[in-house]
């Protein structure tokens, strides 16, 4: 199997079938160390199955998976691997009558590491929740505890399955900060998400997954540039007229005093030119509005679907 040597994770032609149902239909990607890689897609797109195959919970029907050069579907490789990876599953249930402190201590013992409990707890914002029973913690707090279990042994690769599903804004900020910190510490991270904002802000590279297939791949900026469509500048200006240099910037439409320019690429440059020209004409611009294409536009263009109907509270 050919892959770049530095790739922490290499997935090639991964197929997973459950009976006749194809959950994953030929997914390939590589993840370099020191990057955050996102699998973005709707629920049921095959993200979780892909991630669970990478961590050895699911056996691929065909295709190859290598994590740190090891094959998680092989028993011996899996045993070597589980010390070196950290995982936060989508639904992690921890014993309800256990205290956060006890779980962290026990997991540290599983990995044979000594941990600074207050430091670990502080990193996930649970410093004053260490003596709370899991059953009395909120969903978001349990998720953050599960996150701590994914990194307390300083793994080389971290997998996070829908890590912020059901989290409040505070939890998300903490998780995003910690994920970024892990990336900066040289870990390779894979996360699945159906939150556009999360993918756009957090991920260095994104695979858009739809119906078990990778339908687009790239940095968020590249995906937006390629699929996001035109930026749109809307304004109204009484007495505004076009000149050839402006006309060349993109597609203009206007109705009475309302002008709209659809521009591909550098919207800032176009905006500057419009303002400069308005100044030359001594025309006042009102209601100026710039809409840059974002990842959501790109996602809709790529998949023909929106993620809107999936509310942040959906845990599954």
């Amino acid at each position, binding site marked *: 199997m050919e892959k770049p040597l530095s790739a922490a994770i290499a997935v090639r032609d991964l197929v997973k079938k459950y009976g006749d149902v194809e959950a994953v239909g030929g997914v390939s990607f590589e993840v370099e160390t020191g990057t955050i890689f996102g699998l973005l897609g709707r629920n049921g797109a095959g993200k979780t199955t892909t991630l669970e195959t990478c*961590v*050895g*919970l*699911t056996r691929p029907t065909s295709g190859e998976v290598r994590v740190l050069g090891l094959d998680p579907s092989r028993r011996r490789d899996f*045993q070597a691997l*589980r*010390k070196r*990876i950290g*995982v936060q*599953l989508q*639904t*992690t*249930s*921890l*014993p309800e*009558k*256990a205290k956060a402190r*006890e779980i962290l*201590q*026990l*997991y540290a*013992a*599983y*990995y*044979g590491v000594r941990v600074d409990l207050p430091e670990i707890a502080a990193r996930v914002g649970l410093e004053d929740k260490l003596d709370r*029973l899991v059953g009395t913690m909120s969903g978001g707090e349990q998720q953050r505890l599960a996150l701590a*279990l994914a990194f307390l042994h300083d793994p080389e690769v971290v997998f996070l399955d829908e890590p912020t599903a059901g989290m409040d804004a505070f939890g998300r900020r903490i998780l995003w900060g910690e994920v970024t910190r892990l990336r900066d510490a040289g870990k390779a991270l894979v996360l699945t998400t159906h939150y556009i904002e999360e993918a756009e802000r957090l991920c260095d590279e994104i695979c858009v997954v739809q119906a078990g297939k990778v339908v687009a791949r790239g940095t968020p900026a590249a995906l937006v540039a390629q699929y996001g469509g035109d930026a749109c500048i809307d304004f109204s200006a009484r007495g505004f007229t076009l000149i050839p240099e402006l006309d060349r910037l993109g597609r203009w439409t206007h109705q009475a005093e309302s002008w709209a320019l659809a521009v591909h690429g550098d919207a800032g440059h176009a905006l500057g030119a419009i303002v400069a020209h308005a100044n030359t004409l001594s025309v006042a611009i009102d209601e100026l509005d710039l809409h840059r294409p974002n990842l959501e536009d790109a996602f809709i263009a790529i998949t023909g679907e929106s993620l809107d109907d999936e509310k942040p509270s959906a845990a599954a």
Partner: protein
Amino acid sequence: MSTLAVLGAQTRANFTWYFWRDGEMIFWSLGIPVFFLLVFSFALGANNTRTASTFLVPGVIGAQVLSSGFWGIGAMLATFREKKLLRRVYLTPLPTWVFFAALVLYRMTLLAAQALLLALVGAFVFGVRFTGNPFEIAFVLILGAATFVSLGSVIGAVVRSTESANNIVSVLTVPLAFLSDAYFPIDRFPKHIGQILRLLPSTQFIDMLRDVAMYGAPLTHYTVWILILVVWTIGATAISARFFRWV
């Protein structure tokens, strides 16, 4: 931390999480057996509660061994799996055997406490005397525990959902206790039925426990039954090892 230290820590955690902090568990594992011993001793004993209690102490202890295996291991594993707790542990380097051993150790420690409590209630309330060799009694108890832990683990290995595991375990535990010489003598059944019931590992174990602990029967008398229980244990362990799934 050495593996043994991890085993100790996990066993302690099991105790804390599933026993000390679970009032229902304390009630079912300590309150109910004592209640059964008291009620049945008075009810069956009429004017000789000591004879009845002498029969019942090993019977109720034996029934607890059954329920430790079926509930404590079988239903527990199915619950762990359905709650997705097993798969999380599977992703850590914790050796499989440590996870099992800690669960078994927790239940065996609890079982020892249950047996001690029932023996004390028998001795102080009803004047029951234990004439057997303590080592032989311990041997029979451990053999029975091994048998029913491994039978229970088959349920935990094969049954997928908590609900069906609970149903199977209820159906097994309650009638078995009544049919295995635990709460009342199966001699009172028609002879042929009694002979058939003596083929049950639960009957063999409870009869052996009672005879060795209370009536001073020598262990050597039960070589065949001991071998049968060993075969059950090996067979059941092999089946659960073959079919056990973490996810």
